[in-house]
């Protein structure tokens, strides 16, 4: 069995923003549970408790802040079901953030990669590119592998059922050089 993947800072901050109520001890609870993210949690709590002058109209800076926050909330809304329904192109486009070949994106889409072999950092970056959370991506990848029904093959034999393999194997199959593979697999 592989190690349990850690929750990302973004996931913790998102959960804090959802739970936050001034004076309800939410900040204290999160600081106790996630001391490594204390600075970010405190910054976020200060933003959430900012006071505004109701008589004065919001300034440009405040409107920009609201727009940025709303855009962020809209971004990470891809659910597990939505990921399952996503076309191959979604994953092929997302994998470009890691500068990897399209076939690696397809391996993710078809859930051919053993989650336990994926560095947390890679999961986080791909989740962000897919506009979903790391947890959702992990849940998706844990499902059974499934080859694309639309795929056509040149083959002398009947296709074998897809199976999960290591991330390293997918990278080697795709012709990624060993130095790049080492860099990708390194947990930082």
């Amino acid at each position, binding site marked *: 069995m592989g190690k349990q993947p850690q929750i990302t800072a973004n996931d913790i901050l998102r959960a804090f923003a959802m739970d936050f109520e001034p004076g309800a001890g939410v900040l204290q609870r999160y600081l106790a549970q996630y001391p490594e993210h204390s600075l970010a949690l405190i910054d976020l709590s200060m933003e959430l408790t900012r006071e505004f002058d109701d008589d004065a109209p919001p300034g440009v800076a405040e409107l920009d802040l609201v727009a940025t926050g709303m855009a962020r909330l809209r971004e990470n809304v891809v659910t597990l079901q939505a990921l399952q329904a996503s*076309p*191959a*192109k979604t994953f*092929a486009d997302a994998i470009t953030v890691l500068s990897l*070949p*399209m*076939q690696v994106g*397809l*391996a993710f889409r*078809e859930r*051919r990669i053993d989650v336990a072999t994926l560095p947390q950092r890679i999961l986080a970056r791909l989740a962000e590119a897919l506009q979903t959370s790391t947890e959702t991506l992990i849940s998706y990848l844990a499902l059974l592998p499934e*080859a*694309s029904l*639309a*795929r*056509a*093959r*040149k*083959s*002398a*034999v*009947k*296709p*074998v*059922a*897809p*199976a999960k*393999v290591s991330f390293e*194997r*997918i990278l*080697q*199959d*795709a*012709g990624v050089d060993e130095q790049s593979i080492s860099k990708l697999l390194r947990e930082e």
Partner: protein
Amino acid sequence: MDPIELARQHAQRLHDDAVRRGRDPWSSYEFAVGIANDLGITVETCAPDAAMLDGGRASFDPDC
């Protein structure tokens, strides 16, 4: 007309167009990749026993 013949005729047209545009049919792999690229199809190589091939020699994903 059966689908195989229709496919053959389409391949013939692609071949003739590519030759007219100066591609070399005697460099068969580059010739085929060039036509694929002209059609907007991305071609990637992989290891002969790559997991993604499921035992095959090549695959085509129309969705990508």
